């Protein structure tokens, strides 16, 4: 009896390894737990859906794609461990992650292991300035975003600007870049530049202080949770100043937290929402996502993770290989205007996405995000 059991075990192990040899592995690293867990959970939904669709069409290079996901907890230390675990599992490329500081902790691990990394929500400038050969990202950089933000602020005719960040790598980077860009403008005065502590619920103290400086516009570069509370508490203070946010405020929960009356008139700079993309790919993706999960994607970053997945599987198909050098060379040099879910995708030699991706949105009185012309 026991012998039979061992035999069965050995057989199943053999079958198991035979099975994995036939499939190509793509890693997904995202914040499945921790403060950004909602982003991570949706990243997994998006990538799982795309992998399923791809496998239904026969996979890549005649093999099924297997998605191996690891949780980085939105925390650099956890992320480094997650990257080490992924790096030992024979994956060709890894998608992720969200958060610049978190990505930074994993970059060298993947680079040394010769694994292609395509980040989806890490916009800090320095990530691609290190000259890492296998690093790419589908999200644009903070300096791109800051350019659009500065242009919008000037267009709105702001004379006194308050800038508020949350000391995270991303928010501080965006705030600093925007400040530098606007310092050359003589008609514009930056009357406030400071940070708040994220994850608190009472921001009346900083709002009171901000109000004293009488700005025409407050540019908050942090995340949607805090932005929603700021808008709500600003309204409770009877303060009518307009607010503007960066792309981390692009989330429908912003309106839920603030209430649509308080969120109305809020501007934000962001990569386009899937609903605002007229391409066939985006429409098909939205329909499929809706069908599988019963609601459209909440945030743009998981969709950008989907773009990373599509780009890398496409490159594998085109180069007919899983060799990281060939794929990296293809992505750097040959991939041009790939029809991504968030628009056309090409990469420059640093691995950054080329082209203007950012748009300006304004929240209307019903709490919908309307693309500004």
């Amino acid at each position, binding site marked *: 009896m026991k012998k039979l059991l061992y035999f069965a075990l050995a057989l199943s192990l053999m079958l198991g390894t035979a099975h994995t040899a036939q499939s190509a592995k793509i890693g997904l690293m995202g914040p499945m737990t921790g403060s950004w*867990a909602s982003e991570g959970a949706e990243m997994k939904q998006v990538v799982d859906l795309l992998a399923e669709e791809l496998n239904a069409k026969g996979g890549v290079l005649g093999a099924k794609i297997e998605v191996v996901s690891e949780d980085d907890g939105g925390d650099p230390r956890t992320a480094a461990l997650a990257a080490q675990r992924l790096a030992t599992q024979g994956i060709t490329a890894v998608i992720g992650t969200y958060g610049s500081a978190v990505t930074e902790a994993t970059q060298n691990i993947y680079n040394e292991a010769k694994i292609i990394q395509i980040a989806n929500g890490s916009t800090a400038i320095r990530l691609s300035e290190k000259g890492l050969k296998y690093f790419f990202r589908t999200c644009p950089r903070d300096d791109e975003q800051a350019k659009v933000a500065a242009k919008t602020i000037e267009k709105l005719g702001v004379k006194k600007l308050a800038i508020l960040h949350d000391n995270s790598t991303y928010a501080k980077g965006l705030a600093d870049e925007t400040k530098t860009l606007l310092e050359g403008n003589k008609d514009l005065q930056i009357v406030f530049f400071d940070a708040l502590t994220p994850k608190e619920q*009472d921001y*009346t*103290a900083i709002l009171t*202080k901000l109000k004293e400086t009488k700005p025409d516009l407050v540019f908050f570069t942090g995340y949607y*949770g805090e932005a929603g509370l700021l808008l709500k508490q600003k309204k*409770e203070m009877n303060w009518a100043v307009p607010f503007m946010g960066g792309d981390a405020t692009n989330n429908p929960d912003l309106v839920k937290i603030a209430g649509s009356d308080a969120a109305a008139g809020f501007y934000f700079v962001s990569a386009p929402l899937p609903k605002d993309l007229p391409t066939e790919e985006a429409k098909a993706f939205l329909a499929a996502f809706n069908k599988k999960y019963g609601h459209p994607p909440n945030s743009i970053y998981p969709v950008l993770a989907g773009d990373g997945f599509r780009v890398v599987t496409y490159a594998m198909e085109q180069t007919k290989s899983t060799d990281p050098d060939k794929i990296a060379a293809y992505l750097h040099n040959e991939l041009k205007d790939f029809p991504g879910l968030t628009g056309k995708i090409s990469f420059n030699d640093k691995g950054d996405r080329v082209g203007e991706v950012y748009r300006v949105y304004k929240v209307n009185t019903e709490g919908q995000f309307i693309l500004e012309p």
Partner: protein
Amino acid sequence: MEQFFQQLTNGLAVGSIYALIALGYTMVYGVLKLINFAHSDLFTIGAYLGLTLLTSLSLTDRLGPLWGVILLAAMVMGFVALAGALLDRVAYRPLRESPRLSAVVSALGASIFLQNTVMLIYGARFQVYPTDILPKTVLHLFGLDVPLVRILVLFVSLVMMFGLYFFIQKTRIGTAIRAAAIDQGAARLMGIDVNRVILLVFMLGPALGGAAGLMVGLYYGQINFTMGWGYGLKAFTAAILGGIGNIPGAMLGGVLLGVIEAMGAAYLSFAWKDAIAFLVLILILIVRPTGLLGERVAEKV
């Protein structure tokens, strides 16, 4: 000057919530000499439970906002008190005779367990309270804009805190709690059922913590499963600031901490708000190691 008073009201509102949570830390410490790290997660549970009960029973539609919220508060406090009792039974009581470190480790474990349970049940996304329950009136008092809700939060917190204070000071059960806090062995000899006293402490503190969670949910509207961490840390600090184990101390510490933070944010940098709060704590501990209202207790030899 106007900013000073506006910040004072800001600080008082936050501080009163810190104080309510701090009571739970201080009571458990007073009786068991244990820091109940899971207390902040009971606060989170209060916030989530409040949302679930509110939306699933539609209390405010049936009873109107006032009675709806009162009934809701009673239910939340009751359930969180039961959760507190359960926590004591599962995580602390088996370790009563063990070294104190085991109980502390158990407290940390319970905290992580509860936090992740909340995340698994409700998801990691922010949850949002309906915005139309509390009145949105903003009072204009002496040149200050003060939302009515903020005064309500302060008022309800104070009522609860003083209610607890009189309960502890004036009732027989309160006397038993105080006796058990001084010397459990002696209290037992006097015929006090110490285990029941501890159970009661583990119900009273969480009930107030749960109420604080509900208030935070109703007032700020946005809750998330990690919210207990920040509030818990501040409330714990407030308890130490006022003198841990001392009930009026926890109230004073909480309110004081809220005001110090708001003032630090106003007149120094906002980003340094937390650093200032903890710096004050360190300074007080250097000058007065027992905290503001703590008394020097002779150690048993």
